């Protein structure tokens, strides 16, 4: 039951993109095609899960060190360390993707290295640290958050593919229309408030 709540909370109620408004940059950047959105979703889910696991381990076991009876509180390093881990993970993903799927690598372009600065990933890590989740919970939360991000991204990409065929006034075409759509999508997600 606890994990269902965790999942519903991370995917729907507190959706990273549409409720917490984190990770907007790739949300707008790689949502033109469903195929690239799926690729990005995969990358983000991987990074978020791994990053949540490693950072929660770091924050539990490394940030408050007890050494020879003394307590070293390193929590001021939290953001720095998290970014370090995330950056390294993204680098690994990028290297592997370039080899494994050059097409997807091309399609994602600049947005792939930018996962480093995707506030959703750092946000997941920070929320885990602040709530003090166990490594397992944190990993699951990271994974669910990633799925929530993926859901929002794929939904949005499918809508944008349909909007591609629409005939909006010139002033509204492109990003303005995408932002309006994202806003309406966010309104729909408000309905889930209170589920957990």
């Amino acid at each position, binding site marked *: 039951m606890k994990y269902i709540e965790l999942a519903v909370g991370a995917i729907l109620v507190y959706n990273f993109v549409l409720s917490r408004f984190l990770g907007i940059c790739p949300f707008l950047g790689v949502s033109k095609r469903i195929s690239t959105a799926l690729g990005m979703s995969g990358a983000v889910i991987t990074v978020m899960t791994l990053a949540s696991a490693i950072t929660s381990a770091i924050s539990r076991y490394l940030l408050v060190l007890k050494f020879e009876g003394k307590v070293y509180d390193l929590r001021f390093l939290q953001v720095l360390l998290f970014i370090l881990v995330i950056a390294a993970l993204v680098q690994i993903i990028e290297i592997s993707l370039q080899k494994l799927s050059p097409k997807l690598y091309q399609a994602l372009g600049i947005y792939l290295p930018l996962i480093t600065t995707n506030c959703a990933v750092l946000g997941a890590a920070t929320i885990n640290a602040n709530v003090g989740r166990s490594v397992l919970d944190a990993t699951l939360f990271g994974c669910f958050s990633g799925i929530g991000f993926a859901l929002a991204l794929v939904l949005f990409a499918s809508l944008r593919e349909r909007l591609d065929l629409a005939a909006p006034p010139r002033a509204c075409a492109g990003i303005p229309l995408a932002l309006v759509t994202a806003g309406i999508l966010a*309104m729909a997600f408000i309905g889930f408030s209170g589920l957990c």
Partner: protein
Amino acid sequence: MDETSKNVPENDIKLPTGEKLVVSSSPHLSSPERTSKIMGRVLLALAFPAAAGIWYFGLRAAWVIFLTTVFCVAAEAVWCKLARKPVKATILDGSAAVTGVILALNLPPHVPFYVPLIGAVLAIWIGKQIFGGLGYNPFNPAVVARVGLLIALPAIMTTWPAPRGMNSGYPSFKEFKTSVDAVTCATPLSIAGTMPKSTDRYETSHFRKIDNVELIKKYALGCKGGCIGETCIPAIVFGAILLVCFNLINWRVPICYVGTVAIVTGVVNYFYPGVTPSPLFHLVTGGLMFAAVFMATDMVTCPITGTGCVIFAVGCGVITSVIRIWGNYPEGVSFAILFMNALVPLIDKASALRPFGHTAKPKEVAK
């Protein structure tokens, strides 16, 4: 010989000159169906719940319906003027009026004039025209406006005046003019929402107060707090029959939507009677019936294929039930429809038809 036979009738035969000939692609005939006719018939179907709403909530409700419709049409005209689109043709297709009436029937009966105004702008501009106008909007404009208003003006949007005859049972003609009172009441759903939930398997439901045969009869006929159009179930069902007969809505949507809500709430109610009232209660209260018939079925924002419609409606039903049972909002139809609207492109993809002749091997069916 043929000279003479040709010359005789030549004088009184009128031959075409070809001046008026038009070339166009085949087919050269078309059905008498028109977009404006479709919208007109939808308006006709909407007249039933509208009339019921006016009957229960007095002339003030008529004023709200009138105002919202006028504002919607005006908003459409203004946008078309600014975007240099044909104003008259766009207005005459009737879609703005339909959106206006649906939105009005989704408003509480006594809203101040600016609520229809904001709603109209939200519906027509943000919900429809910004995407390019009728047909291009991925979300139902009326639902966009309703959700927007619900989020922005929660106090106004959840203040429900009591219908006439709330206490006596049925409104009478005598009361018709005197009904502009400020007595408010809660909707059955919002009462249910504020009641404590208990997951005790064997508790006899405390929902009994609001969920009993007598009350459900009253609810169904429309004597309950709520939006203008959503209260009177018989009127809505009548409208639905009309729409299905005119082939304007896919019958799968309302049936599957309502059916899913009944099943989900029924299952939950069966196992945990302290969590939610009976399915019958869910069917006759709130905007479920109205939304299932008039809002979820909007052609533009619903999947095209039959299978798609079933998926869409079941999704709407599940989300509505989940929000009603566990969510913060007492009513979830608008959110559910909005969310499922966002899924429509994906549903369309998933439920694409198998074109004729696209099988691995031709099948022998007859002979």
